[in-house]
């Protein structure tokens, strides 16, 4: 593109492996390789030969920070053809979930990145669409990583402006562009 990029050569980090399944498993489940699952069909019947029923079946898997991160990691940066995860704009450790509240910190690639608002908007839209409506989402620029941190924060959390932005076809297209890859969620797209 001819336009001068805000940050024409950002540091790119290898994406971390797809969400480790470790946190999803507990107790007995942790013990078993997923490959054993196909043989588990018979575990309802006699425990003999089976040991006690395997725990954690049917219990609710709560939405946690890692799941939220999964929703955001593969969003494409507005300026570069790489994911926000690769740019470390969103990091698993900067996402907090509790009850019906979600807090996401985003870290701009450079302190004067004019794209931060756009990125924040993409995050908000993604979460509006992908999180149950019961969640109240707060998005913040990671402290001290952007020169107009507070102004951006205020904008990102003004819902009227978000709604208006969504009705601005041009803006919406850009956002949709960033979100187009969001479905990968750290994996390669299904062919």
């Amino acid at each position: 593109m001819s336009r001068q990029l805000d940050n024409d050569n950002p540091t790119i980090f290898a994406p971390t492996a797809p969400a480790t399944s470790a946190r999803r498993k507990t107790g007995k489940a942790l013990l078993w390789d997923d490959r054993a699952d196909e043989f588990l069909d018979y575990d309802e019947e006699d425990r003999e030969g089976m040991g006690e029923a395997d725990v954690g079946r049917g219990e609710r898997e709560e939405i946690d920070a890692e799941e939220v991160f999964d929703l955001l990691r593969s969003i494409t940066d507005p300026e570069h053809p790489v994911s926000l995860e690769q740019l470390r704009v969103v990091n698993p450790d900067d996402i907090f979930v509790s009850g019906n509240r979600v807090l996401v910190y985003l870290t701009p690639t450079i302190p004067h990145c004019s794209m931060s608002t756009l990125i924040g908007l993409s995050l908000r839209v993604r979460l509006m669409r992908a999180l149950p409506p019961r969640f109240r989402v707060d998005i913040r620029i990671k402290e001290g990583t952007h020169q107009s941190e507070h102004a951006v924060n205020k904008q990102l959390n003004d819902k009227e402006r978000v709604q208006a932005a969504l009705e601005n076809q041009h803006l919406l297209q850009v956002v949709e562009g960033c979100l187009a890859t969001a479905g990968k969620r750290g994996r390669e797209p299904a062919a």
Partner: protein
Amino acid sequence: MDVPRIVKTQITIGELDPPADLISGVNDGKVQLLEVVKALGEYLTSVEDGVRLKGLTFLSNLLKSTTPSKFNRPATVTLTRFFTSGVDDFDSLPPSLSALLVLSKLPTFDDDAAVEVYRAICENVNMKAYTQVVRNQVYQLFDSFLASHRNALKSMGADFLNSYTKMVDGEKDPRNLMLLFAMDRVILLEFDISQLVEDFFDITFCYFPISFRPPPNDPYGITADDLKASLRLCMSATPLFAKMALPLFLEKFATAVGPAMKDLMLTMAACFPTYGAAAVSERGTELWEAIKTEILYQSDAGIEAASLSALESLMRAMYPTPRDSPTGLAQDIIKECLKLLEDPEKSQSLAATKALVAMFKSTASVGPFVVSQTLPHLFRQFNHPTNPSHRAPILWSLTSLLIAASKVYAPPGSPRQYSHERPFEQYREALMDTLREGLRTNGLKEPAARGCVALSEIPGLWSRTEVEEVVRGMGDIVLNERNADVRKAVLKSLTTLAQNFPASIESTTLPLLFHALPDSSPPMADASGRDKYRSVLSSVAELCFLPALFEILVIRTLNKLDVIASLSPEGEQRECEVAYSFDILNTLHGVIVKKLEAKHADVVKHFDTVIPRLTGLAVEASKGRVGGGVPVWRDKRLLGLLGKVVDRLVWELPAERQAKYLISLHGAFDRGEMGGIVAGSVQWTAGSPLRTGAPPSEQNLIVLYSSAIQALKPDTALPFAPADLLAKLINWTIHLGTAAFQQHYALELITAFVNKRYTFPGMEEALTSMMERVWVGDVQDLEKEEGVRRRALAVFLHITRGLALVRHSLAYTSVERVVDVLKLASYDPVIVGEAARGLGVIAKGKGEDKSSHLTAKLLWAQKMWNFALPKLMEGDADAKGRERLVYLSAFASLLPLVPASLLASDLSNILPLMIRTLSLPSAAERAHAITSLESLLETSNASLAVDSLVHRYAETIVEGLLKSVGEVPEMGSSAVVRGNALRCLAAVPDAIRHEALSSLKPVVLRDLGRALDDPVRSVRWEAVECRARWYKYK
């Protein structure tokens, strides 16, 4: 034949393609060509252009379809003369040319003729005046001359060359250019152009660099690359071009960008060697400067690669043989590169490394020189880095060189032998020290490992001791490295290395790894311990894939399993041991599968070790015992996995070996002779595990019997009458082996057996009567206890499945029976519901597992579907109220049988049914319907009929799906059905135009909002995808 009349009529009616009989007449000699010419005479000589043209064309066409042998010398000469005379006339030229082309290919067409015609054309034809089609004809003719009368043209000397360059000058048409370039090359190579270098330079280089974008749907499909390649062949055809070409190249650098730059580089790479040392050296420095910029600052990988090959070729040209000492430019370049390597973290240093690699690859003269200049430098930097973070890139630079070296020296028959160049001799120690250090140091392990592999591959460089040292180092990383990526990378290197040095891996790495496997599982809480052994297992799996190492895996894993089996753990710890055993066995299984896919022959020969020993574990564990915990090997997951291993290996056995094994297996399950199937001895007094009153633990051994028989080849000899076995099995399945696990394997066994043996003498009758007995005697007998009836039905359906696959008539009568009982919904609800769902058994077909050994005849599924569907629809139509439900669920259960494409044919009837199934209470049945619906939607755009139907029902479909997305009262739900429904909904936006659903969109988005809160994470995943698609739906 009245030639004149034919000719007359043809010409007068203007039909210029000669009639078949005339052609055949000419070809089988009834008519002389010259007769025809005579007959045409008046036209050919007519003063009216139109008439004359007709005559010409007619004759020319005739020649095209005349067999060469029919042209005798005089005919050829006359015709040639005649058509040559036509070339000066604008309209006559095209037919004349095509005639001449025919003639020029004739043996009777001699050199003089060629020269004559060529001259005539050059003198009379003004190329500019003609379309590229006609020009093409001219070139074709020239080409044919060049092919068959080259020497004649040569003897014309400058005369030819001059005229040629004039004729072809200014051609633009790509198709013609392709032809010209081909001719040019021949001329440049074979003709003496020394006097006309400039002219040829002009007609060749004027096209460079080629900027050509093929027109859309170009009939000749000529690409820019085709043109570039063939032009390149011309440009690099003769050293005579060098003087003019090199300056041209240098000036092109100023302007070329993108593809042009790549073309320029590749062209130079092609030209330098032909142009030769002398010429190239003159401009060497300038050329390097130009190439360098691209190597250092080019972001496009393609161009960079091209630049590197240009550099390589530059070196080739300047220092072709080992005798040419790499002084001057080579030295300077290396100096520059080393300068850039001073700051290894700059991207230029990477480029510098690439440049050095390219130079190394160039020639036996430059290669070793590069090494001698570079290595000391790198060692110095590595040992005394200005900044510790520099060591990794430095090591990568070194490794890159080593890899290049292995690429150059390793391939058998490569022109460059290590033994001739020996560049690394004086650095042996230094290299080993550096790599040793690398293998020890975090951040350096990966490049070090890669470097080791490279060196190990260079023939005659490393002795076994050196190899073993690095193998030890790498093994240590594979075992202890925490960073999974590094571990994987090094393991990969080690595996590559293993191919050349299996012995070293066997003697050093494998013992190290296997020793790291504990003799009993770490306790439940010790997750890290478990990760450790899993990582070890995956490592040995990688390494032991090699035939040379597989045996060790077999022995070690079996021993380990023995050890674990000998423990008698309690409660939680037992579960751990089971999981541990499972992981070990699964590793073995995984490698076996991978090797079989890779067609390794060595797998089967381990059958006699693997199977009996594993069987032994299972048999031993199944024995009734007093006190002690439950043996590990009673675990069904282990048994199930064991079943898979048995299946795999038995299937690989040749028929006679199978038969042999089957005898002992049958002995075991028929008469309880367990000794025959286990390694070593076993105390077994119990009798057959299938006997009445056998404890469940023994009954579970059915998995062995079942897996083995499923894997039998159809022609394997049986030690028993098939009918007898079948009878026994049926009885056992209905009355004895009642646990789900046993049922599963027994029923699969029955299906497989029937499916493969139904043709055996006596089987048909036996099957008929047995099914009759099962159906009437058990299934329909309300007196019998429910369990018996259910199992009997299952047996009945699985037999039917086996037969349906081979389109056996019994299958259809049986299905008819099943559909028939659906009438009795309210009279015999239990069995009817079961029967309806039961059709799903048949729909399973060969089963998901690709390695299923069932035989299926072509179109069996379609046949069954077309048979059953009408009956179901009929029944559905006749039934009332709730009684219709069973037909729906039968329909739903049968749906997986057929691909969407087949549904399409009768969709107007099927779709409404499918939509109704969306309201079935059973989640499982809805799940089937939804899956079919999804694949239907995915293909709907293919056919108009389907498309319009889908659109007509669009809203009902979506509303139906939404029911399965959320929880609806008195409708069962499951993660599976919710997931399917969401996937299906996600397919809607692509299948159905927005107008049809715009009103529903807000509703869908709202309901999906709820689905986002599904208790199951995987379902939420689908919900997110689905909702994202619906937001984009416009």
